[in-house]
């Protein structure tokens, strides 16, 4: 499958935006994220050593790398690893029965982890795989610029809508299931 560069750029830029906003969100309240990170219980407890700040930093570096042509394949691979890692971390904790764990995935409300988040992250990781597809080479024009400039916020909004709807369904299920 050969990918048109406008589509490829649209997808990588969207993933870059997702990672950058996730990283920025975590950096804004690093203390809170630190607690969430240790609650996941995947790292051996190392007193005095805080590694949680590495996660948002990595997210932002990958985001930047995705928009630059030379670093795109490496960043794409890292993004796939990172997103699959999140999926695995959530899956492991769901398996452990830690259903009321805060997911730390941003947003104004504290949301607990759920199975749909595993699938969401796996799908996003899969989308990052477009960097490994062969892209056609053609000069990009004004229309391509429009596709990317308008397409990125469009994809972001669709992502937010789906996220919100699944979150609503999850909360309703919790409300009805609590009795």
């Amino acid at each position: 499958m050969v990918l048109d560069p406008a589509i490829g750029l649209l997808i990588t830029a969207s993933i870059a935006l997702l990672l950058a906003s996730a990283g920025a969100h975590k950096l804004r309240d690093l203390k809170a994220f630190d607690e969430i990170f240790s609650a996941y219980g995947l790292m051996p407890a190392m007193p005095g050593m805080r590694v949680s700040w590495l996660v948002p930093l990595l997210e932002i570096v990958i985001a930047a790398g995705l928009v630059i042509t030379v670093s795109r394949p490496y960043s794409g691979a890292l993004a796939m690893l990172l997103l699959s890692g999140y999926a695995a971390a959530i899956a492991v904790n769901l398996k452990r029965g830690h259903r009321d764990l805060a997911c730390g995935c941003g947003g104004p409300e504290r949301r607990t982890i759920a199975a749909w988040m595993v699938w969401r992250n796996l799908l996003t990781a899969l989308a990052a795989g477009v960097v490994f597809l062969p892209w056609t080479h053609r000069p990009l024009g004004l229309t391509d610029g429009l596709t990317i400039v308008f397409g990125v916020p469009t994809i972001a909004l669709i992502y937010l809508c789906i996220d919100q709807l699944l979150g609503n369904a999850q909360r309703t299920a919790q409300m009805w299931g609590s009795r």
Partner: protein
Amino acid sequence: MTPLTISVIVLWIVVLALLAVVFALTRQLGVLHERIAPVGALMLNRGLAVGEPAPAVDVVDLDGASIRLGAARADGKSTLLLFVSPTCPVCKTLLPIVKSSGKHERDWLDIILASDGNPDEHRDFVRAQGLANVPYILSAPLGMTYQVSRLPFAALVDEAGILRARGLVNSREHLESLFEAKRLGVASLQDYFSPAK
């Protein structure tokens, strides 16, 4: 810029605007899910316990027909006792809602209105409100038995004669929350919001 490019720009802007609206709607849905929780009515005092047999009372309605309240019913229907008064303004706004709910839920629910006082005054009230088809009881002991403190007050007794919900009802939401209370087995607003049992 070619006309096609301009058309594409316009379309993108429309798509973004529509998505912004959809997103706002999904957020509002989330807020609604939280605010309109299915709850029982607000219970004002203790006493009659929800989930226990309702007190059995024999009464006579305005037309002289005798009704036994609080007993198990052979036809498998529940009874909604609604305490009203001709002098209560909220009752008047609630009655059309009660009538429409009664029609809507008639498969499983009978509505009975209850009050006390001068029968002539109540007959005028029944005529003015178009309540001829709804049994109307005048009985002070009934109100005391069900510990009615404020009007309009409702009590839902199920087919087995068990009191399922009781409390103040001021709106359609309150009224329907009584039905929800029966359906979900939640006694009251306080019960719903108390920590999971």
